[in-house]
């Protein structure tokens, strides 16, 4: 049993009131980034002792086929809608997708999207890995994405949100700039790591399409309304005289959910709304982290 800590000592406390103001380019009040999860799930993965891959005995036909819809159908629908309204993706990538379905990865690359790692497969979890094993999936991620896209990954979203206590230290040591795994703020925050510099960029579970449709059981139009309310509030606080300055809104997506025919139409209206509002700085995760870091002492 490794040591556990009641306080993970991730970052310094900083209340919403009285912070130095964050400024976004062009005086925009809310940085909006879209994070499509481009994933590959295995039909018959090996068992991790800490978490089951599928809730049913393999093959979990509905679980697997639903996620496979993303690569055959959903991605193409979602990506076209994003491009039409000027939203680049910052891709949370199961890097084995580069091997299995390079067509999807290449499409994202040609659209000018940014890639970060979401592990090898979304059916392989970090729970229980030793340091050498965790280093190997980080090194695999860096090399695989470099080979497939020419990009050096700058960020990490733990595979299926599975961590070890050393994950943040390791990705900082390998020179990654941002983590999407911490949900404590609506602005970027530096994370305490053993070496290097790691910034937590606001991702979101609350307005993640997975939460919207499978935790909160929203209809497509209710989810669209939720995203618009999230944007309206963050844009308003971001322009307040006595506020914290520019905020960050992330829209995390899974195209097997948002790319379904009853959902994509209402979602397109969200992107149209945000793009037409005038207060949004539509950016990638890396651009947001860079702009924020330039303002830090």
């Amino acid at each position, binding site marked *: 049993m490794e040591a556990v800590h009641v306080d993970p000592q991730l970052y310094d406390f900083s209340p919403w009131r009285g912070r130095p103001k964050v400024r976004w380019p062009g005086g925009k009040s809310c940085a909006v980034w879209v994070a499509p999860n481009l994933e590959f799930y295995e039909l018959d993965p090996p068992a991790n002792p800490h978490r089951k891959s599928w809730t049913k005995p393999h093959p979990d036909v509905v679980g697997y086929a639903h996620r496979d819809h993303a690569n055959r159908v959903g991605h*193409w629908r979602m990506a076209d809608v994003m491009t039409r309204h000027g939203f680049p993706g910052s891709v949370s990538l199961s890097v084995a997708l580069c091997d299995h379905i390079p067509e999807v990865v290449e499409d994202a690359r040609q659209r000018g999207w940014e890639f970060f790692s979401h592990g090898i497969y979304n059916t392989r979890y970090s729970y229980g890995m030793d340091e050498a094993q965790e280093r190997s999936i980080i090194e695999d991620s860096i090399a695989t994405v470099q080979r497939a896209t020419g990009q050096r990954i700058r960020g990490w979203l733990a595979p299926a949100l599975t961590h070890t206590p050393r994950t943040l230290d390791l990705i900082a040591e390998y020179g990654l700039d941002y983590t999407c795994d911490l949900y404590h703020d609506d602005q970027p925050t530096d994370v305490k790591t053993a070496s290097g510099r790691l910034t937590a960029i606001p991702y979101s579970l609350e307005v993640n399409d997975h939460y919207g449709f499978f935790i909160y059981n929203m209809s497509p139009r209710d989810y669209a309304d939720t995203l618009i309310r999230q944007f309206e509030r963050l844009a308003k606080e971001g322009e307040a005289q006595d506020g914290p300055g520019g905020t960050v809104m992330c829209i995390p997506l899974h195209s097997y959910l948002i790319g379904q025919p009853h959902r994509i139409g209402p979602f397109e209206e969200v992107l149209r709304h945000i793009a037409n509002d005038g207060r949004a700085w539509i950016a990638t995760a890396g651009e947001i982290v860079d702009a924020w870091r330039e303002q830090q002492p």
Partner: protein
Amino acid sequence: MSLDPSYLEYPHRRPGMDHALYPYSNLFTRPPIAWPAGKSVAIWPVISLEWFPMVPSDTPFRAPGHMQTAYPDYRHYTAREYGTRIGLFRLLDAFEAVGAKVSVACNGAIATRYPAIIEALQAGGHEIIAHSTDMNGTIASGLAEGEESALIAGSLDALEAASGTRPRGWLSIARSQSFNTPRLLAEAGVAYMCDWVNDELPYAMSTEAGAIVNVPLNHELSDRQIINVQQQSVDSYAQQMRDAYGWLANEAQTHGGRMLPLHLTPYIMGLPYRIDAFEGLVRWLAEQPGAWFATGSDILDHWSAQE
């Protein structure tokens, strides 16, 4: 603490899928499919018609909708039977009023117990899809291959005996399969199955016993998912189907024919307080110039002819 080294080995990491059932294919780069009379969206109603034995089986798993209380669970047994006695006929009336033919995914036990239903389906020109024996006839890994093939044959035989026609289609309970199911269905002569929800048009799978087509029956668009699981209203359901139709009809202008599956459960959709809204949806769909109401066999045959 560390994981077994095999956890970081990826024997199926290669171009294409991690199995041999079907190759990767992008819906948007396939040759466009044409439906009859230049229609853009095939509306495929599938009504699941189920008989739940009062003593549920958990082998290999208990079917959704099955008995829940201590024996005797009269409330669930009879509420499901309400769908079979009344809800089904409300749904059939809604479709027959616009001249639509539907697919009915039928437990073999329905044919044995209620021949009047089979007669009504035949009189209406509807298609019968095999949907296992009864709601204890679930399939998953762990079910012996012999038992699974007997269950498939038993369902097909019962439906053929009652209707005179061997079903061409198959829907597993909860769309749940074992690794053997596609091959066993192909061996049994089934032309198409509806279980894999990874696509929005038919596609071929290959098995050691030959090919079988999967005609995807989208579970996300089902009344069970939207109304029972996600607890949304029937008005929201109808709105979602209209939104889906609109998107697909628009997509069809540039990419060829599309499919809108309507998976229905008589004891969910066939209730008095829901059926009016559903009838309104069916009428709205029938008024759309691009809508083509079709059975699974209609879709399969038009798709096959263009392959």
